[in-house]
């Protein structure tokens, strides 16, 4: 009798149901620092946002790793509270349905036995939940703990991939405090994981409105032809906060606004505004173009730093109906602190597209309003016909990242009546109106991307290091020039000297 010859197998005939939408493969997530603030406020509420939208993979499990003597039960209770306080609508019920998927693993980061036990636990999860050896490690810990965790993960083989299994690590900011420490951290990461396994979170990139910068530029035909030095006078990128440092004085004192905001969020936004169109929307094509922008920004010399930067520190003032403390009066801040709570920087991108168009970056605490925006200011028309040849307000394309997310365009329009008078009007698109409803948090998008393995919205090693190179030169210039922060009253738009930074005929926007 002849044996039956099986026909050759083909790929899953329903596979398009899994790839069409963005679906993650089954996996387990290990959160280091699971008793911390970030886990409770952001990570787990965001995971439940994904669960509510049906975006978590089947069998998904979470193991929380921290030092405290918590049990599975107390851990779950704490997370349930967090989801209730910080989650989107309907996430508490999503958590209840998945409660059993959360487990607590008590160990010190420095204890190798803790990792051996973690490994066993993960293997058990693979057997029971078919997570197939796929793991994501989230470092939600103080940066000082990174190196121990990374070494231990590598030593017990948890960072290895193979046989279709993935192992990924998500690293929270700050990625170092200068170029040297960033390189050292990246080397430690590299000793345990390949770059393709590493996901460095800058939550700004998870914001819809930040991603919309690329959509606006490259999905529309009308903007890109104007997007260069011929038509754009300058670009202002602002991240303003109205709050002070609060209880984070001790941490902030070590970093200052340039490390805390400009090195990461503002430079990330700048690269999206300034980059060339990528050949495709793949992770490396996009990040290659972003890195090129950073590379085209020369490190400033101390003399240039004196001209092109302004440092400020908020001083006591009556603001928002009350007496606001000055930075030096905040808890954890020395009375003679020289840390800046405001910085404005003029950067020049030395390439064909942007030569001659300055980019002004500013960020500060205790400014009048909380606002993040990119303002693209266009040049004046070559010949001024109206208002007796006096220059009118320039056209501004405004990308509002938060709050009141949207895009608006300011242009001049004739005032009805017998005279020829021109007044500014605004054409406005608001996210909330055009796409009402509740939007996913930035962390939701980023967690899902990490599960899918899409690193487009994560910072690559060279990006982080280039950004530090630019910032290091500024910090070194400040030190060399003994450029101390200038006081500004809390609730104002920063030191007056910041106006001079812009050059004649330009003013800072007051968002």
């Amino acid at each position: 009798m002849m044996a039956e010859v099986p026909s050759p197998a083909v790929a899953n005939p329903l596979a398009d149901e899994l790839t069409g939408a963005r679906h993650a493969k089954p996996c387990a997530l290990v959160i280091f620092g699971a008793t911390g603030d970030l886990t409770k406020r952001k990570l787990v509420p965001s995971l439940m946002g994904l669960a509510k939208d049906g975006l978590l993979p089947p069998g998904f499990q979470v193991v929380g790793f921290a030092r405290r003597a918590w049990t599975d039960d107390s851990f779950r209770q704490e997370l349930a509270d967090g989801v209730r306080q910080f989650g989107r609508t309907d996430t508490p019920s999503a958590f209840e349905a998945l409660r059993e998927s959360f487990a607590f693993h008590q160990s010190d980061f420095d204890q190798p036995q803790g990792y051996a036990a973690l490994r066993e636990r993960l293997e058990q999860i693979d057997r029971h939940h078919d997570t197939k050896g796929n793991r994501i490690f989230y470092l939600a810990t103080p940066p000082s703990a990174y190196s121990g965790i990374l070494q231990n993960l590598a030593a017990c083989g948890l960072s290895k991939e193979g046989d279709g299994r993935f192992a990924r690590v998500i690293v929270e900011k700050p990625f170092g405090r200068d170029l040297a420490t960033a390189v050292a951290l990246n080397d430690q990461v590299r000793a345990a994981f390949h770059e393709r396994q590493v996901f460095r979170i800058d939550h700004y990139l998870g914001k819809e409105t930040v991603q919309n910068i690329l959509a606006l530029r490259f999905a529309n035909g009308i903007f890109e032809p104007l997007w260069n030095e011929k038509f754009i006078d300058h670009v202002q990128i602002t991240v303003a906060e109205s709050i002070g440092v609060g209880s984070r004085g001790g941490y902030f004192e070590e970093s200052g606004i340039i490390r805390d905001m400009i090195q990461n969020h503002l430079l990330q936004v700048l690269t999206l505004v300034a980059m060339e169109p990528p050949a495709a929307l793949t992770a490396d094509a996009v990040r290659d173009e972003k890195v090129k922008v950073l590379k085209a920004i020369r490190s400033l010399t101390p003399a240039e730093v004196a001209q092109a930067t302004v440092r400020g520190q908020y001083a006591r003032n009556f603001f928002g109906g009350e007496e606001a403390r000055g930075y030096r009066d905040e808890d954890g801040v020395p009375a003679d602190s020289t840390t800046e709570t405001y910085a404005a920087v003029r950067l020049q991108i030395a390439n064909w597209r942007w030569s001659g168009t300055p980019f002004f970056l500013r960020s500060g605490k205790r400014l009048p309003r909380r606002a993040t925006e990119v303002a693209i200011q266009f040049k004046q028309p070559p010949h001024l016909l109206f208002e007796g040849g006096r220059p009118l307000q320039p056209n501004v394309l405004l990308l509002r990242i938060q709050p009141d997310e949207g895009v608006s365009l300011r242009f001049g329009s004739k005032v009805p009546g017998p005279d020829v008078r021109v007044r500014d009007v605004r054409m406005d698109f608001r996210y909330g109106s055009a796409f009402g409803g509740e939007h996913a948090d930035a962390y939701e998008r980023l967690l899902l991307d990490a599960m899918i393995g899409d690193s487009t919205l994560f910072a690559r090693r060279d990006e982080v290091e280039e950004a530090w190179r630019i910032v290091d030169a500024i910090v070194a210039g400040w030190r060399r020039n003994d450029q101390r922060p200038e006081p500004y009253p809390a609730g104002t738009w920063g030191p007056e000297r910041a106006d001079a930074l812009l050059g004649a005929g330009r003013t800072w926007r007051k968002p």
Partner: protein
Amino acid sequence: MTALRTPARQVALNRIPDALRDVWRACSSNEPGGNVSRALTINFIGIARAVDELELRAAVDKMHRRQPCRAFLILAQDGVQTMHAEVSGGARSHGQTREIVLEQIELRVPPAWFGNVPGLVRPLLVNDIPTHLYWATTWPQLPRHFDALLELSDHAVVDSGLFTVPAAELDALRVRQEAGRKLTDLTWLRLRPWRRALAEALERFPWQPAAPTSVTLRHAANTAAQASALLLGRWLEKRLLAAVFLEESGPGEQNQPDSVELRHGSTTVVATSNGRGQIQVKVETTEVCWLPFMVAASRGSAGDLLAAAIDMA
């Protein structure tokens, strides 16, 4: 951000544009420097029987938060002699700025007047934005009424779960889809987790095209579940070249299948609704029996699915 609704006002059919202007006036802010703008992104035409009025309203309410719209709510009502119109509006206010996010025109239409609806609606559609039709009722006895409204629209949404003779009416729908009409069926969207669960199961073993494949779909004895099972069955028949059998499991309210049993050679996949919003999937081959996995079943209301259908269109 706060929401504001103007009260509904009855108006004569030829005064609807004036009533809309009154809505804008009512929405504008009285504060100095305040202004009002319209943020409409779609025209929306929703049709239901007057007895299903509440369901249609709930769906539109959900949907307009995501898609600010000029909405026509058309309620087919027996026992009235002539067509009645009511106009109302909704706005959001951000500081001094008000934004109109809903202009609603509600029409109560006796059966004999139905043919006049397109003529009334057409000039009232806001130009330059897409028009979506939501046919939230049974398949029409006079399909030309449906077709006339389809003609006005860029995209139409139906729910075959509301059909009375699903097999024949799904065919009628398919004819229109094949003719190039953009049509979304909410019942098909509700099946998405089932499709995904089965696709996920097929990842666990090799697919042999020559191996015999059969599928048994069990569903409650109601037309909504029948429509759902028919859609899923036809899809599996086409994609897996499977022999598909539909079985009624007995009386029940559920509008999705109870279970899908797929046999492929010596492998069995059983996906079962556990009645608590989850689909449990078991895969068994001659060598391995996998631990079951769960996929969340669709919990979206008609309004959520409608908003999703419009987003995707």
